[in-house]
C-alpha cells in the first residue's frame, strides 16, 4: 500500500483558505502535503506516477476539511448498551466526521482527569476518529461545586459543560467562567431553566396544546442564554451556547455578538429541519431536549446560521437503547441519534439557498475547530490530513435499523434525504469508505 494518498478532480471547499473549486489533494504521512487548484491541465501534469500513490477520483464530489462534531454523547463509560466509543466513532466517520467531542454525562461523570484519561485510553484503543472529551463544570454535574477544570484541561478536555443539565446557580457559573480563563477554556452552556421547564416533555405552544402534552416554554432556554451572556460580559470568560433551539436565543446571541461579548453558538440539524409537530402520534423518537419547536424557531435557526449568529452545526448525537424509547412519552429518554443523518439534512440548507456550500463547511468544520482551539478544520499544507469526501447527489431513505450507531432513535426514519459521505480520512488513514 503506497503511503501517499491522492484525491483528484473533486470540488474542494475549504473556507479556511477561501478555496471553492476543482482541485487535487496530496496526503502523505498523515499530513496534507499540497492542495492544487490550478487548471485541470497543469494538475494532470503534477499527478504522482502510477503505483506511487493511492489515487481516488472524486469527480462530482466535494472534498472538504473533515467535519468536527463538537457535541456528541458516546455513553462510555457506564452506558455501553446505548453506545460505545467504538460504535459512536464508527457512526461518526460514516457521517463524514473526523472528530467528535464527547459530553461528560457518562457514569461516572467525566468530572476528573481520571475519567478523562479513561476516555482517551479507550479512544486510543477503539476509536476510528479523533475523540476530544468535554469535562463537566461541576462535580457529578450536580451544579454545586466546581469540578477539577484545571486538571481535566491538562488531561485533554477541550471544553467544559454540564450538558444535559444547566448550572442553575449563577454564582457557580460565574466562578467557572472566571476559573476557566486561566486555561483559555470555553464553557458550553446547556441553556434551560430547569424550574421554568418544570416537567415539560415537548415545546410549549399550539402543538403541545393539540397533543395534550406538558410544554417547555422557549423562555426556559432564553432566560439562561440571557444570563450567560451577562455573565460572559461580566467575567470576560468564553461561553458557547449548546443546541440553540429558540428564536429568542438567536436574537439575544446576535445582539451579544454585536456588543462584543465572547460568545459562540451551535444548533443541530433537527432544530432547523423539524418542528414540534414531529411528536404527532406520541412519537418518542422526536422527544429531545431542548424540544423541537415551532416554524418560527426553525426559520430563526436558518437565519442565525446564514448571518453567522450561530457559528456551528453540531449533532447532539444522543443514542439510546430501544427500551429507553419504547415507553410512555413522559418516561421516554430525550435524544436523537444524529451522526449519520447530519450531512444530508444540512445539505438541504444549501439546496434551499439558506447557506452557501462554503458557509455549511465552515459551520461543520472550521467553526468548531476555531471555537475549541483545535488545529483542525483546514486543508492547508502541513495540517493533519482530516478530509471528508461526499457526494451531494444520491437520494436515500433513512432506515433506523441500518444505522451503525447502537442508537436507532431517529425521528427521520422513513424520510428521503440527499447527500452521502463517500470517504472519511482521519490523519491520512481512510477511516470510512462507502
Amino acid at each position, binding site marked *: 500500500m503506497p503511503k501517499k494518498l491522492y484525491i483528484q478532480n473533486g470540488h474542494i471547499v475549504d473556507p479556511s483558505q477561501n478555496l471553492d473549486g476543482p482541485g487535487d489533494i496530496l496526503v502523505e504521512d498523515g499530513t496534507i502535503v499540497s492542495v492544487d487548484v490550478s487548471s485541470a491541465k497543469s494538475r494532470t501534469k503534477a499527478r504522482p506516477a502510477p503505483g506511487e500513490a493511492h489515487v481516488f477520483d472524486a469527480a462530482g464530489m466535494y472534498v472538504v476539511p473533515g467535519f468536527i462534531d463538537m457535541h456528541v454523547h458516546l455513553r462510555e463509560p457506564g452506558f455501553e448498551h446505548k453506545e460505545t466509543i467504538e460504535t459512536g466513532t464508527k457512526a461518526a466517520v460514516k457521517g463524514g466526521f473526523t472528530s467528535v467531542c464527547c459530553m461528560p454525562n457518562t457514569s461516572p461523570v467525566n468530572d476528573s482527569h481520571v475519567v478523562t484519561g479513561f476516555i482517551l485510553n479507550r479512544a486510543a484503543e477503539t476509536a476510528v476518529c479523533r475523540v476530544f472529551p468535554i469535562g463537566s463544570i461541576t462535580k457529578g454535574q450536580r451544579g454545586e461545586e466546581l469540578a477539577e477544570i484545571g486538571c481535566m484541561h491538562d488531561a485533554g478536555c477541550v471544553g467544559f459543560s454540564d450538558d444535559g443539565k444547566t448550572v442553575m446557580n449563577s454564582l457557580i457559573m460565574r466562578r467557572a467562567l472566571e476559573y476557566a480563563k486561566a486555561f483559555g477554556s470555553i464553557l458550553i452552556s446547556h441553556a434551560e431553566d430547569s424550574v421554568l421547564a418544570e416537567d415539560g416533555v415537548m415545546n*410549549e*405552544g*399550539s402543538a403541545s*396544546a393539540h*397533543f*395534550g*402534552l*406538558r410544554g417547555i416554554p422557549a423562555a426556559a432556554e432564553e432566560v439562561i442564554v440571557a444570563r450567560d451572556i451577562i455573565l460572559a460580559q461580566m467575567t470576560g470568560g468564553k461561553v458557547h451556547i449548546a443546541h440553540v433551539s429558540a428564536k429568542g436565543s438567536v436574537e439575544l446571541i446576535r445582539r451579544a455578538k454585536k456588543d462584543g461579548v465572547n460568545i459562540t453558538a451551535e444548533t443541530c440539524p433537527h432544530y432547523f429541519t423539524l418542528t414540534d409537530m414531529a411528536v404527532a*402520534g*406520541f412519537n418518542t423518537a422526536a422527544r429531545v431536549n431542548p424540544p423541537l419547536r415551532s416554524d418560527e424557531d426553525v426559520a430563526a435557526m436558518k437565519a442565525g446560521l446564514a448571518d453567522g449568529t450561530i457559528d456551528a452545526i453540531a449533532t447532539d448525537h444522543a443514542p439510546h437503547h430501544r*427500551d429507553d424509547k*419504547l*415507553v*410512555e*412519552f*413522559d*418516561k421516554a429518554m430525550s435524544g436523537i441519534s444524529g451522526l449519520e443523518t447530519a450531512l444530508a439534512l444540512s445539505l438541504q440548507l444549501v439546496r434551499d439557498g439558506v447557506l452557501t456550500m462554503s458557509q455549511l463547511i465552515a459551520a461543520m468544520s472550521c467553526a468548531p475547530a476555531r471555537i475549541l482551539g483545535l488545529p483542525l478544520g483546514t486543508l492547508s499544507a502541513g495540517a493533519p490530513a482530516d478530509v471528508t469526501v461526499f457526494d451531494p447527489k444520491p437520494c436515500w431513505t433513512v432506515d433506523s435499523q441500518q444505522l451503525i450507531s447502537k442508537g436507532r432513535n431517529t425521528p427521520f426514519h422513513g424520510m428521503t434525504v440527499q447527500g452521502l459521505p463517500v470517504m472519511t480520512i482521519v490523519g491520512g488513514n481512510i477511516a470510512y469508505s462507502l
Partner: protein
Amino acid sequence: MNLKHLISMRDLSRADIHQILDTASSFKDVLKRDIKKVPALRGKTVVNLFYEPSTRTRTSFEIAEKRLSTDVVNFAVSSSSVTKGESLFDTIKNIEAYGVDFVVVRHASSGVPNFIAEHMDVSVINAGDGMNEHPTQALLDAFTIRDHKGSFEGLEVAIVGDIIHSRVARSDMIGLLMLGSQVRFVGPPTLLPPQPPPGVRMYYSLEEGLTGVDVIIMLRIQMERMNKSFFPTTADYFSHWGLTKERLARARKDAIVMHPGPMNRGIEISSDVADGPQNVILQQVTNGLAVRMSVLYHLSGGEYHA
C-alpha cells in the same frame, strides 16, 4: 361506524357522535328495566387497566361492561407487577397473550392509549390519559346536553376552572366544537392556555364568561395546583372563580350546571349551586353508564339490537 378504538374525540365524526348518543338512549331505557342486563357482548373480555386511582370512571365502566354481559377483569396497578418495575410494554404484551377483546385504560401519561393500540391487538378505550383526553366523559357530557337542550347548534358552553391540565376540557372542546356549539374557557390565566385554541373564546372573569351561556361545565380544582402556585389559596380562587348562585344568575335562566366529579364544594362550586335546581350532575353519572355501554357496543361491531 367502523371504529376499532376510541382514543380521541378526533376519532369520531359528527355523525358518529350522534349515533353513539342514539344507541346510548336505547341503553338508558334498558337501565330502567327490572333486569338491566343484555347479552350484547357475551363471550367478550374486557380488561380495565387503571394506572391512576379512579373510583367513578372505573366503576362506571365496570357496571357498563357487566350490563353488556362481558367478562370483566380489573387490573389493579398497585397490586400488580408494575410496582415490581415491569414496563408498560411488557405489561400489555402479557395482557394481549391472555386473548382479551377490549382494554379500557387510564394513565397519567398522555398518549398511553395510542401506545397500547400500536403494540397490542385489541380495541382500546381511553378512560383518561394525562392531560390529553377523556372521550367517554365528553360523550356523556354531550348526551346530557342533548337531553336538556335538544341540539348543539348555537349553544353557548362555558368550561370553567383548570383548563390546561384537564383532559375533560380538551375532549369536551373537541366534541362540542364539532357538534356546532360555541365554547368558552373561563379561569385564572395560570390555568388557561397561553393562546385560545381555534374557535374558543377565553375569559379571566367568571362573571363575563358566564353571561348568556346555556351550559356550564365546572372542572375539579386539584389541591396540588395550589402548592405549585397556580393560584394562591382556595379562598382566593373561590372568591373569583367559584360558581355561586349570584354568578349563576348571569347565565341563561334555563342554563344547566355540570361537573365531572368529584366536586370540591366551597372551592370551585358552592353547595347551593351543586344541589340547586339547575344542576344535572347526577344525571351525568347515570348517562355515563349508557354512553359507555354504547361505546363498547359500537367498537365490537354493533350487531345486537337492544
